[in-house]
């Protein structure tokens, strides 16, 4: 079950030549599951995805099938948005699907669109992903020419088009309502989110399913192997495998496909080859930069699924594991982390707009050895005043790690400050 490449649902075609071309992709089975799906009733497809235990791989980990089920019964048109705005530091897995197997993503998005009877799919790619954008553009053209996109798809009587949306370098556009605003041609300010939003009120006020690239790419595989088999690959509440982005101080960083619930040590030591230069492990950021840092002791028996990581006091998020060795200064890490959020805060909510810059200034002062003892408490206090006081989760995304760095590595901050 463990190790690299034994279970390859998503990564099966990674690295194989010609896979981005539609002929080769079809020879290897692409779109066969779309054919199967359109012969099923839409609600049967949704039920199957629900049974599989597939959870969103974009960060929040919400049940994909349940999300699809929130679409109101009588409102049309409906949209599907593929969130390809991957920009959480540490996360770099969706890029591989876009570059190596674009037709798998298209097939998954089309099956989702069939399940919710959507008429348009938007693939929203971040602006910096120039190469993946070129690949997806060609894949959409090819799939359209072959009749997988367009009118009366595979004789089902259902029509659906696929289009590209492009970001222009703003992290917040990966938040689903920020993404929708951006897609509508505005600055990507997140919207307030009542329940079932945006499934009920999304793009142009119409029902919209926003799913991450990896989540949708799993859908054809669920139809292929069956919901039971898929669910059996992971843990009881986390179906299937995950693409884990491993980065930082490891010998072989990379993206590894492993079953949900795999021990963290398997990823770091068996796949990643262990810590750079055989140094000691100091800490791990388990789910992208917005997750709480875990000390080496807390990681000892950690398993990588949503519940286990939450029980350890952090979150699996987008499954981006960043490894930190004993040579890294945690106050310096705090500077890198807060700099990101200070740069990316969209400015809509005052606590986040003002607070993120404040955090960066305090963190920089401490890391540069110019801080005062009270700066440490101020850091914590400012983070506390951002947490839970913003429209979207970006506030918490900077507040949580800030507080966890101080709680767990306070001695490093204290060693740097003057009285």
């Amino acid at each position, binding site marked *: 079950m463990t190790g690299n490449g034994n279970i390859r649902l998503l990564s099966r075609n990674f690295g194989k030549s010609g896979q981005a071309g539609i002929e080769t992709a079809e020879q290897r089975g692409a779109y066969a599951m779309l054919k199967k799906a359109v012969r099923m009733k839409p609600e049967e497809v949704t039920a199957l995805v629900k049974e599989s235990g597939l959870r969103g791989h974009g960060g929040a980990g919400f049940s994909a099938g349940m999300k699809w089920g929130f679409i109101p019964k009588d409102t049309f048109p409906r949209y599907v948005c593929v969130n390809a705005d991957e920009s959480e530091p540490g996360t*770099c897995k969706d890029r591989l699907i876009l570059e190596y197997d674009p037709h798998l993503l298209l097939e998954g998005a089309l099956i989702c669109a069939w399940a919710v009877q959507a008429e348009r799919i938007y693939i929203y790619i971040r602006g910096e992903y*120039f190469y993946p954008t070129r690949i997806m553009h060609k894949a959409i053209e090819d799939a359209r020419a072959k009749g997988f996109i367009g009118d009366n798809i595979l004789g089902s009587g259902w029509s659906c088009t696929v289009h590209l949306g492009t970001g222009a370098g703003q992290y917040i556009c990966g938040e689903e309502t920020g993404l929708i605003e951006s897609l509508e*041609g505005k600055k990507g300010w997140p919207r307030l989110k009542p329940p079932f939003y945006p499934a009920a009120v999304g793009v142009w006020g119409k029902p919209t399913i926003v799913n991450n690239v990896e989540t949708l790419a799993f859908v054809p595989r669920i139809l292929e192997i069956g919901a039971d088999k898929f669910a059996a690959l992971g843990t009881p509440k986390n179906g299937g495998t995950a693409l884990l982005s491993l980065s930082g101080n490891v010998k072989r960083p*990379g993206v590894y496909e492993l079953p949900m619930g795999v021990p963290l040590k398997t990823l770091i030591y068996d796949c990643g080859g262990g810590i750079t230069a055989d140094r000691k492990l100091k800490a791990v950021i388990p789910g992208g930069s917005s997750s709480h840092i875990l000390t080496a002791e807390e990681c000892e028996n950690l398993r990588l699924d949503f519940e286990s990581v939450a029980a350890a006091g952090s979150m699996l998020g987008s499954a981006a594991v960043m490894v930190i060795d004993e040579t890294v200064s945690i106050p310096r890490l705090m500077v890198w982390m807060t700099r*990101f959020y200070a740069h990316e805060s969209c400015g809509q909510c005052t606590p986040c707009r003002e607070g993120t810059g404040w955090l960066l200034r305090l963190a920089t002062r401490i890391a540069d050895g110019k801080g005062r003892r009270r700066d440490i408490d101020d850091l914590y206090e400012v983070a506390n005043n951002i947490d839970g006081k913003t429209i979207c989760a970006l506030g918490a995304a900077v507040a949580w790690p800030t507080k966890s760095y101080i709680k767990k590595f306070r001695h490093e901050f204290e060693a740097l400050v003057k009285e």
Partner: protein
Amino acid sequence: MQISDTLRKKAEEIFFRFPPEHREAALVPLMFEAQRELGCITPDTERWLAETVGVSLVKVREVLSFYCMFRTAPAGKFLIMLCHNISCCLAGAENLQQHLESKLGIRNGETTSDGVFTLKYAECLGGCSWAPMMLINENQYYQLTVEKLDRIIESYRKGQPILPEEPTPLLGNVGEPAPA
């Protein structure tokens, strides 16, 4: 102002992506295309965008100032975006920053006096597992070292750019047997 036929054709292609009653949705991708062709978004271009898309000028300004990849003044011939986020810094990006600044004689956001290179630090380019990473214009480069960076920069200076590794390299990653 003079708008090229290529850009007008692009605009039509982009409008096709959205329902006809939502032309304003074309603003971000069209601004991208305009910048690609014209080098930056000038006040003239803003007016053209507003008219073409059918929104007020202030809306265009709002979008222009919100997204960090848009600019109002031209960049150098080659825009270097070097990532300095957590994974890249853990892999030595700060060394690369210092090296690049002293090599080019410019700092973040500046352009060399000959107009060839503009340097801009980026907050995560999505290459974390192959860090450090940079983009030069639309080309992606991974696993940078000082030597590799020097080779790439020199190749651009000579006008014969080293082609990037596309797609993302897989060595030691998923789908490949782990190296011994």
